[in-house]
C-alpha cells in the first residue's frame, strides 16, 4: 500500500513539474501578452494542483494534509482570479490579442511590437 502511494505521488510530482516547466518555457517563448497569460495560468493551475496532490499522498492523515488542502484551494481561487484580473486590466488599457486585430489595423500591431 505504501509503495502504491509512493508511486502515485511520484507520478503526480513529475507530471506537475513537467507542466510547470512547460508554463515557464511558454512564458519566455510566446510572442505577446495574451498568449503568455494563457500558457502561464493554464499550466499554473494544473501543475500546482498536481504537485500539491503528490505531496498530499506523502503526508498521510495529519494536520499537514489539511494545510496542503488549504494551499490547494487558495491557489486555485487566487490564481484564476489574478489571471482574469490581469487579462481584463490589459484589455482595458488598450492592448489587443494578435489574432483579433484586423488586417486593416496592421499598423497598431506594428506599433505595439515597436513599443516592445
Amino acid at each position, binding site marked *: 500500500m505504501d509503495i502504491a502511494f509512493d508511486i502515485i505521488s511520484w507520478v503526480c510530482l513529475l507530471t506537475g*513539474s513537467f507542466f510547470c516547466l512547460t508554463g515557464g*518555457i511558454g512564458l519566455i517563448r510566446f510572442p505577446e*501578452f495574451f498568449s503568455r497569460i494563457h500558457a502561464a495560468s493554464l499550466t499554473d493551475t494544473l501543475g500546482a494542483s498536481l*504537485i500539491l496532490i503528490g*505531496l498530499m499522498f506523502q503526508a498521510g492523515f495529519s494536520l499537514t494534509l489539511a494545510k496542503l488542502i488549504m494551499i490547494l484551494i*487558495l491557489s486555485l481561487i487566487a490564481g484564476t*482570479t489574478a489571471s482574469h484580473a490581469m487579462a481584463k486590466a490589459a484589455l482595458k*488599457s488598450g492592448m489587443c490579442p494578435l489574432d483579433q486585430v484586423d488586417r486593416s489595423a496592421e499598423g497598431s500591431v506594428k506599433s505595439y511590437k515597436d*513599443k516592445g
Partner: protein
Amino acid sequence: MMYAITALTLLVVMALALARAFAGPTLYDRILAVNNFGTKTVLLIAVMDFLSGRPDFLDIAIVYALINFISVIGVLRFFEYAQQKTVEQAE
C-alpha cells in the same frame, strides 16, 4: 529524490519567470511574471518542507499565497486607475 527533482524544476521555472519579468516589454508582462514567480515560490516552500522531512513551514506557504494574491490585485487596480486618469487628462 523526487522532491529534489521537483524543487530543481521549480527553481528553473522561477528563473525563467524572472527573465520574463526583467525583459517583459509591457507592464502587464512583468506583473504576470511576478505572479507566476509567487505561486512557484509557494510550491517551492511546500516541496522543500517535504525535502527536509520536517513539514513545519506550510503556514508560511499559506501566508505567502495570500500576500501574493493581494499584492497582484492591488498593483493591478493601481495601474488600472492610473491609466484611466491619464486617458481622462488627455481627453
